[in-house]
């Protein structure tokens, strides 16, 4: 409540606040007027400085998200615009669509396959970087390299690496005497391939975040652990991991929010013309379904209903993560 009134409160004063920047004639004005002006300046400038952010964010960020719920309750076509209020019918249609559940399962499956190994590897890499390496900067940059490749490019490159017939991965498997895997047609295999793309792009980035957290751990904790006879592994488990908990929560929650919205990777992994996530949508995701409803079937109502359900799902997952981390004791009560 206070947020709105404060932000609005700042705006009407804009004209009164702006004079100070232009150097006002210094000697002619009376001190009282100047002092009043200065007082206004001090009082209202902060609101003036933060208002562009809040106004723009409200218009392009929050309003669209809230309005999604409104659109989802209407018959709303891409070309014809707003139609009748139809209550929850869009939701019913989306839930009845067999692809919804399938793509929901795909989304969660790809998310789990990409987040769990990613965090384990990122922590391991961070621990290796948190040593007195020669050429420290060089190593840090090298793990960040994949971050500059866009998801679209990553999907194209890995689509070729995971080619069903002649891809490098299958050739390597053949080299060690294993059967080729149908990466595009098998449901689980396609999830693994797409999760690999996400892991490739983000592991190094998250490793740097964990590295930063590890370097903030006071070194004397390790010294006393060593005096107590703890080996390296024990030190890592009993000192490092507990100390980087808050960062862990941060990384897990951000990767949940990003991971559940995955779009570019599965869309470009598809080599059929429909590009809906494979011939039987074996790797289609929820965000792809939003696109499919809205811009291929031209039904913005159903697209909004799908987007809104994904939004709720993301909130639920973020909360579940938080609770799970607490339960597992990864998040102690002693966190600052």
């Amino acid at each position, binding site marked *: 409540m206070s947020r709105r009134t404060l932000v609005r409160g700042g705006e009407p004063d804009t004209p009164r606040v702006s004079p100070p920047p232009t150097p006002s004639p210094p000697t002619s004005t009376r001190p009282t007027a100047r002092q009043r002006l200065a007082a206004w300046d001090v009082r209202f400038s902060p609101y003036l400085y933060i208002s*562009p952010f809040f106004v723009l964010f409200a218009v392009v960020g929050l309003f669209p998200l809230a309005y999604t719920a409104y659109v989802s309750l209407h018959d709303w076509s891409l070309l014809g615009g707003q139609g009748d209020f139809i209550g929850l019918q869009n939701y019913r249609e989306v839930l009845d669509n067999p692809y919804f559940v399938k793509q929901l399962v795909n989304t969660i499956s790809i998310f789990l396959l990409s987040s769990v190994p990613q965090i384990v590897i990122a922590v391991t890499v961070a621990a290796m970087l948190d040593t007195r390496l020669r050429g420290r900067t060089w190593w840090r940059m090298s793990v960040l390299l994949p971050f500059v490749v866009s998801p679209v490019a990553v999907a194209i490159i890995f689509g070729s690496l995971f080619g069903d017939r002649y891809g490098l991965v299958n050739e390597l498997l053949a080299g060690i005497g294993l059967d080729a895997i149908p990466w595009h047609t098998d449901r689980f295999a396609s999830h693994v391939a797409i999760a690999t793309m996400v892991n490739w792009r983000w592991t190094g980035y998250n490793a740097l975040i964990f590295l930063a957290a590890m370097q903030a751990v006071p070194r004397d904790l390790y010294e006393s652990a060593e005096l107590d006879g703890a080996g390296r592994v024990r030190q890592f488990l009993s000192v490092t991991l507990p100390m980087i908990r808050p960062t862990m929560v941060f990384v897990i929650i951000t990767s949940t929010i990003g991971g559940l919205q995955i779009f570019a990777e599965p869309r470009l992994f598809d080599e059929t013309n429909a590009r809906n996530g494979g011939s039987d949508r074996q790797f289609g995701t929820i965000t792809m379904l939003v696109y499919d409803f809205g811009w291929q079937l031209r039904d913005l109502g159903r697209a909004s209903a799908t987007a809104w359900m994904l939004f709720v799902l993301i909130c639920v997952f973020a909360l579940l993560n938080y609770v799970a981390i607490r339960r597992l004791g990864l998040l102690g009560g002693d966190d600052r």
Partner: protein
Amino acid sequence: MSRRPGFLVYGLLLAFALGSAAPLYWSFLLGSHTKQVAAQGVPPLLPGGHFLDNAQRALDTVPFWKALGNSILVSSITALSVVFFCTLAGYAFAKLRFRGRGPLLVFVVATMAVPTQLGVVPLFILMSEFGWTGSVWAVIIPWLVTAFGVFFMRQYLVDAVPDELLEAARIDGCSQIRVFWHVAAPAARPAAAILWLFTFMQVWTDFFWPLIALPHGNPTIQVALNQLQSGFFKDYSLVLAGTTLATVPLLVLFIATGRQLVSGIMQGAVKG
């Protein structure tokens, strides 16, 4: 743990670094061989001499230069806008006292977790109302500010600018905006550069919204790559030559500024 690492650590890190670079090399490798060689599976591991031919074919099939221009335009304008507005707001949150500062900052942090991408439908309706769909402005406007930017600048400025300095400037008769411009803004420069870089890369690699908002004839680089792949997915030498070409700009930026990027990610993490 500050220990001298052994061969095992160097070996594992080297493997990780090679794994990070290998897919990029693969992209260039297939892009440098002829269509026939690329279609036969794993090509010779040294580059062939056909990269320029393939790249030329890619340039002929999609409006690559137009897309490149659009991406540069969109990314630099948004990055500049984010840096300006977020430095201003971050400064207010870090150094100015006003009622509601605490709750408003909490609000900013909370909005960092909001998946705004899910508001595409109303955003599309909004842009259609204004008649901006199809123009690059449709892609620029949603990115003009970011909650992350405000928070990042706030965290940096809290420590970077001593309060005494601001007070001295005020006592000397500087108005608030002049204090910001002459004291805070210069001190914010290192963080602003990192924020600029980050926003630039984020907007450059964004795909979902540009795909919706932009038509075939006026794409960003990601949308153009999408067109290239959908039309020619059987011809990997062409598609991967185009992909390599499209990755070069950010690669150059990375080589020039990787140090700052690394320290930016690490700074954001510790304070965040």
